[in-house]
């Protein structure tokens, strides 16, 4: 006599049938078990869902595809805007970074330009030439005013502008000496001589000349 099927075997066979998406053919043993076992009969309910699985009740709006396309179009526009904004932000960041870099490096470039000395040196040389000429004239004038014992300090008279790279820097102490010497002796003399002294003083105090001289000194030291 054949041993009746148990529920576990029945479940296995029912699962296999469901896997094959078919309600049959059931084995004779399974059929006999289902007649006897009401609990396993409830499994048969699962076979009922398949014919109605693709239920027509899931109805979409008629314009579903239009809605999706409209939403996709909005999404694309948004993505394009985000991409453009990102690019703009990157460009702006680079621009700002560049400006900051330029600002930070600008003093360096000025210092480099200062170190070249060419424009200031030319200016200084020109001024010294003028002053030297004026001092020569002043010397002549002093002689004409019967002050034969007065002579300009040696430092001034021995200037050799051609041999000095930094004429103004080298001559600053000399100019100071000239200034202080003249101050004592110029009092009795006439205005042109006083003007010469003032020009010497003005040259010493000129900010641009001072700055240039300081740079030269720093470099030399």
């Amino acid at each position, binding site marked *: 006599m054949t041993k009746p099927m148990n529920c576990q075997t029945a479940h296995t066979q029912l699962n296999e049938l469901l896997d094959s998406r078919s309600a049959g053919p059931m084995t004779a043993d399974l059929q006999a078990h289902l007649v006897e076992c009401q609990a396993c009969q409830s499994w048969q309910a699962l076979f*009922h869902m398949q014919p109605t699985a693709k239920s027509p009740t899931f109805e979409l709006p008629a314009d579903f595809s239009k809605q999706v396309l409209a939403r996709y179009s909005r999404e694309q526009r948004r993505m394009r805007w985000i991409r453009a904004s990102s690019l703009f932000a990157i460009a702006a960041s680079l621009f700002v970074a560049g400006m900051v870099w330029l600002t930070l490096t600008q003093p360096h470039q000025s210092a480099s330009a200062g170190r070249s000395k060419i424009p200031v040196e030319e200016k200084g040389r020109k001024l010294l030439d003028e002053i030297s000429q004026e001092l020569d004239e002043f010397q002549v004038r002093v002689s004409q005013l019967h002050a034969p014992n007065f002579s300009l300090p040696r430092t001034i008279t021995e200037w050799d502008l051609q041999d000095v790279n930094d004429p103004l820097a080298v001559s600053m102490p000399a100019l100071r000496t000239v200034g202080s010497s003249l101050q004592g002796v110029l009092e009795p003399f006439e205005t042109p001589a006083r003007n010469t002294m003032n020009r010497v003083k003005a040259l010493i105090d000129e900010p641009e000349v001072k700055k240039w001289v300081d740079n030269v000194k720093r470099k030399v030291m």
Partner: protein
Amino acid sequence: MEEARHLRNERLLVQACRANDPMALKDMIERFQQDVYRVCCRLMSDPHEAEDLAQESFIRVFRSLHTWDQERPLKPWILSIAINRCRTALAKRARRPSLSPLLDCNPGREVTAERSTDLQQEINAAVDELRTEYREVFILFHTEEIPYETIGSMMRKPVGTIKTWLHRARLAVVQRLRERGVVYSGSIPPHD
């Protein structure tokens, strides 16, 4: 032969979609909208949310077309995207307090067993109560008729796991049907 032709057609469709051809995009939506919406509906149990997720799924599909494996059919790939969107939405829903009672995609369906006589509707209600992965497998296999192997690749799980989940899902559905008195509610036999 037929399958190769089908795949070739799908490849052409995808190429046209990637070129942003509006007709191709429309064709793609209309070809799969019912499948996507049905899966979303079954997973979300809310027609409005399902519609929104179906739209979102298509947008995600369009954006990801370059990742589609041309050797595999489109439908399972599209459905896996829809399932992922639903999974994310369900996780969000679980985190926020429920503001409305459970809605249903099928307005004609009664939720309670006492008032319902339709077996299919009862099965749907029982499926809605399954845990997420069981519900996904159950719907993909029984509603969408997708084979085990494809479900496995869609869900990135071994076929054995998918089978186990499906068998447990069936057992749970039968148990729910018994609890609702839809089918015989005698003692539940032990399962393997």
